[in-house]
């Protein structure tokens, strides 16, 4: 009998290849007759393209072709589509400007693709690209969302640079609640623009076969089937049968590799034109300019409370910067995935949120780890902590007074939480963080000349976006299900095909644990296949912490079908009634007897059907399932951050960070903890070190690892973690998802701690040493 695998700290099956340098990432794929692409990118944020002179480039040694937007237009290559239609407050569709893969007539952000050079070697392509002369007529640019509406129009169809004004909630009820509030807390802040910065840069390598009239695209993608669907149906007008998309080992995504990018389209299209494979690999400088960015909100948020600290209402007004074009899912991030989370863990009865989404001359903005939910948590948890300080209430007590305690709970912002236990995660976090010992630690810090502060964040997130029909009614243009297939081989080993994609999450281990546990097989008997449209039946990919809750459930549904068919086969072999057959850890048994057949014996009978009910049952043991969830899952937790601020320099160190999460049932705690560590570090990065800075002309000043600081090892501590387990009620594994929590909860906890240390109302993100030092100077001047 095998020990239970669900809940076990199993070491990862995928580690060996990564540790020995034998993983295969997109740039590692070298095809016969490989050619290389280099893109010419706009140096201007906003300009008309007058002429493109490429004669010298075309004559350059090794150059095979130069293409511009005109070539793509002539070939009728379509624009990049947006996957979510938002309807504005007046019932009108959002403004959807064309997004050509190579610029046509005008450029709208620094780094926009203007032309591509394809050559025998990468060096030749790059050298030739340097020689292309583009004559621009430079136009005024706007980079800040708040200034967009009065700036020169970026797209003809949006004269005021507004994509939509959208709202959720009952404005009149909220206004009425504010009118009778005993206290109102108001904050105004920017949720800083971030660059995802997966360490593997994006890459795409496309090849075309004349013999089969078909394409294969290797691409660093989080969702190869979605990439294929968008590319074939909307851009290249090809049947899906003629395009295979392979996302091999992918070196991190964090959202940035969800989207269909122009580079992917161009290399695929060019592979047929040249009848040779075309590879493009981003360098880091290109990545800063061309990977979709995240966040970038300006928000005014208010919380109304009664005299006892009960929340009466919340009013939020956000201007969201979408950048120059609509990236694949850009429109749903600051709306559907943001405003719906503003209830947080609390019973706030009325919430109104208005979002103005604008175009600017900046890189397009889309989902980045958390996607809308970090922004919502930041609003809620900064307001709550600030309200507690203003009303001189304990921030923990204030949260407790407002916790949702009965489930299911219908929020005023559309979501219905199926389950949760916020008191449990809070209680555990307070103990683990030794909050009662904080005062003493603060005194110790003071003796060393440091200011110590403590901050909390009680976050909620919604994972596994669903169901498809509800999302569709809200504007989604894609399904939100997941697909899985279980292929049992004649000797009883199992290959699992999943539409989820792993790029660090460890699915090859976690999913194998689920399958091996359910079937009662050793984990070595189960292999996971993903990331190839020619192998996997279908898939929506990995984003929004959906893989285990949606992808895992699809696998379980397919497993149920395997066991059901296995029972029929076993009943025949054992000459028993099907209803008497039980499946128990690897064995089909006749209930109440010692008669049984192993899983392997049943599998063998299915493929060598000599003694088999062929007249009523097909041979073989292979099942698939599509699963469309009935609701989101709602992970939640409490984070406690302690910071130490150096009074002389303003440098802030994370002195301690405690995270207690409720992800429902946990399959592999080791992997889940790793996800939390990474999420927390990205959240701490947003709070302390990361942030895009654009010059007013539209140049990205923070365009490399030397100017844009992702956390280094010395910026973070060893984390203190614990898990509470309130199983999800609407999927068979009871799982919720864990990928984004850290990035969602951490920024508010850190800023709450810094404002506590400094005794100020607000500190803007990123709270760099310079930013904090300025606050310290103001404080000391105020004392004089």
């Amino acid at each position, binding site marked *: 009998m095998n020990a239970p695998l669900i809940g076990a700290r199993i070491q990862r099956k995928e580690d060996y290849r990564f540790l020995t340098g034998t*993983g295969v990432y997109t740039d590692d794929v*070298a095809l016969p007759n490989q050619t290389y692409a280099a893109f010419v990118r706009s140096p201007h944020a906003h300009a008309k393209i007058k002429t493109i002179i490429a004669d010298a480039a075309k004559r350059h040694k090794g150059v095979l072709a130069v293409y511009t937007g005109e070539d793509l237009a002539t070939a009728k290559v379509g624009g990049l589509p947006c996957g979510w239609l938002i309807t504005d407050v007046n019932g009108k569709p959002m403004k959807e400007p064309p997004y050509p893969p190579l610029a046509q007539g005008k450029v709208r952000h620094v780094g926009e693709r203007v032309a591509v050079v394809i050559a025998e070697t990468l060096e030749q392509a790059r050298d030739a690209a340097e020689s292309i002369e583009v004559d621009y007529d430079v136009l005024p640019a706007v980079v800040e969302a708040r200034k967009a509406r009065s700036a020169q129009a970026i797209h003809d169809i949006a004269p005021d640079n507004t994509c939509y004004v959208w709202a959720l909630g009952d404005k009149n009820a909220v206004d009425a609640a504010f009118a009778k509030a005993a206290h109102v807390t108001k904050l105004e802040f920017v949720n800083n623009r971030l660059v995802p910065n997966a360490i593997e840069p994006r890459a795409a390598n496309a090849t075309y076969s004349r013999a089969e009239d078909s394409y294969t695209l290797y691409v660093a993608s989080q969702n190869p089937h979605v990439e294929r669907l968008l590319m074939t149906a909307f851009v290249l007008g090809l049947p899906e049968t003629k395009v295979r998309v392979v996302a091999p080992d992918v070196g991190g995504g964090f959202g940035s590799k969800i989207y269909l990018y122009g580079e992917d389209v161009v290399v695929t299209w060019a592979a047929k034109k040249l009848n040779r494979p075309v590879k493009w690999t981003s360098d880091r400088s290109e990545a800063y300019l061309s990977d979709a960015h995240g966040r970038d909100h300006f928000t005014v948020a208010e919380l109304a409370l009664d005299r006892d600290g009960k929340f009466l209402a919340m009013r939020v007004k956000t201007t969201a910067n979408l950048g120059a074009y609509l990236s694949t899912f850009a429109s749903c991030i600051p709306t559907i995935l943001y405003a719906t989370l503003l209830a947080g863990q609390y019973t706030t009865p009325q919430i109104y949120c208005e979002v103005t989404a604008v175009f600017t001359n900046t890189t397009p903005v889309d989902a980045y780890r958390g996607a809308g939910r970090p922004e919502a948590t930041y609003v809620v948890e900064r307001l709550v902590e600030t309200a507690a300080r203003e009303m001189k209430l304990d921030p923990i007590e204030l949260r407790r007074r407002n916790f949702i305690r009965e489930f299911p709970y219908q929020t005023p912002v559309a979501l219905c939480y199926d389950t949760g236990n916020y008191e449990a995660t809070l209680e555990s976090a307070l103990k683990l963080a030794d909050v009662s010992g904080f005062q003493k630690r603060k005194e110790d810090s003071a003796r060393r000349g440091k200011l110590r502060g403590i901050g909390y964040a009680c976050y909620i997130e919604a994972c596994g976006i669903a169901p498809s029909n509800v999302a569709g009614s809200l504007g989604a243009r894609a399904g939100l299900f997941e697909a899985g297939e279980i292929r049992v081989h004649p000797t009883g080993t199992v290959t699992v095909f999943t539409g989820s994609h792993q790029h660090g999450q460890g699915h090859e281990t976690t999913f194998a644990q689920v399958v091996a546990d359910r079937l009662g097989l050793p984990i070595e008997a189960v292999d996971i296949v993903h990331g190839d449209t020619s192998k996997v039946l279908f898939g929506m990919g990995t984003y929004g912490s959906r893989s285990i809750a949606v992808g895992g459930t699809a696998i379980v549904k397919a497993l149920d079908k395997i066991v059901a068919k296995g029972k029929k086969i076993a009943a025949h072999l054992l000459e028993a009634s099907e209803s008497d057959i039980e499946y128990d850890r690897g064995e089909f048994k006749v209930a109440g007897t010692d008669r049984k057949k192993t899983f392997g014996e049943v599998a063998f009978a299915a493929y060598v059907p000599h003694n088999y009910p062929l007249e009523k049952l097909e041979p073989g043991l292979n099942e698939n399932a599509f699963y469309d969830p009935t609701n989101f899952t709602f992970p939640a937790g409490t984070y406690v951050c302690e910071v130490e601020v150096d009074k002389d320099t303003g440098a802030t160190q994370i002195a301690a960070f405690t995270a207690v999460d409720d992800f429902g049932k946990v399959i592999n705690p080791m992997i889940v903890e*790793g996800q939390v560590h990474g999420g927390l570090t990205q959240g701490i990065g947003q709070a302390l070190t990361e942030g895009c800075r654009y010059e007013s002309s539209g140049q990205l000043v923070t365009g490399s*690892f030397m100017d844009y600081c992702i956390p280094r090892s010395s910026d973070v501590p060893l*984390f203190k973690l614990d898990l509470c387990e309130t199983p999800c009620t609407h999927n068979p594994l009871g799982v919720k998802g864990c990928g984004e929590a850290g990035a969602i909860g951490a920024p508010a906890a850190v800023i709450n701690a810094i404002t506590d240390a400094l005794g100020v109302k607000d500190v803007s993100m990123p709270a760099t040493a310079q930013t904090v030092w300025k606050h310290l100077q103001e404080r000391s001047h105020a004392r004089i």
Partner: protein
Amino acid sequence: MTIKVSMKVNGKPVSADVEARTLLVTYIRENLRLTGTHVGCDTAQCGACTVLMNGRAIKSCSIVAMQAEGADIMTIEGVAKPDGTLHPMQQAFKENHGLQCGFCTPGMVMNALDFAKSHPNPTEQEVREALEGNLCRCTGYHNIVKSIMAGARAMGGKI
């Protein structure tokens, strides 16, 4: 202009005619097809391209191939035993879940090998300082730090 370069990589003598501007990492990846050494940036910040040159960890994006003329280079492909058994440092990364997407991992391991020679029993602080030149976006460094502490102890000061 092409130039002939010769060096030893993972114990094997190799030589090739390359353009003078060819970076060592390009030579390793494109000429030798040893694609375990990765490129994650263009400013010598991320450390994904770290290899050992004459036993010292270097960023192979920061020198041209001809600067490694006659050198003894070890890449991630040369770390495990010939029979495939993981090196104690690799094993420590596996046991401590010190990797997620795996892209920064080769650079982390190569840097850790050099570091562990002189730090057979390092503190957390020492490991964090040694990782200044290696970026990871997945792990929050937590388990990388634990991996290197455990791997260094297992190595006992010897690669």
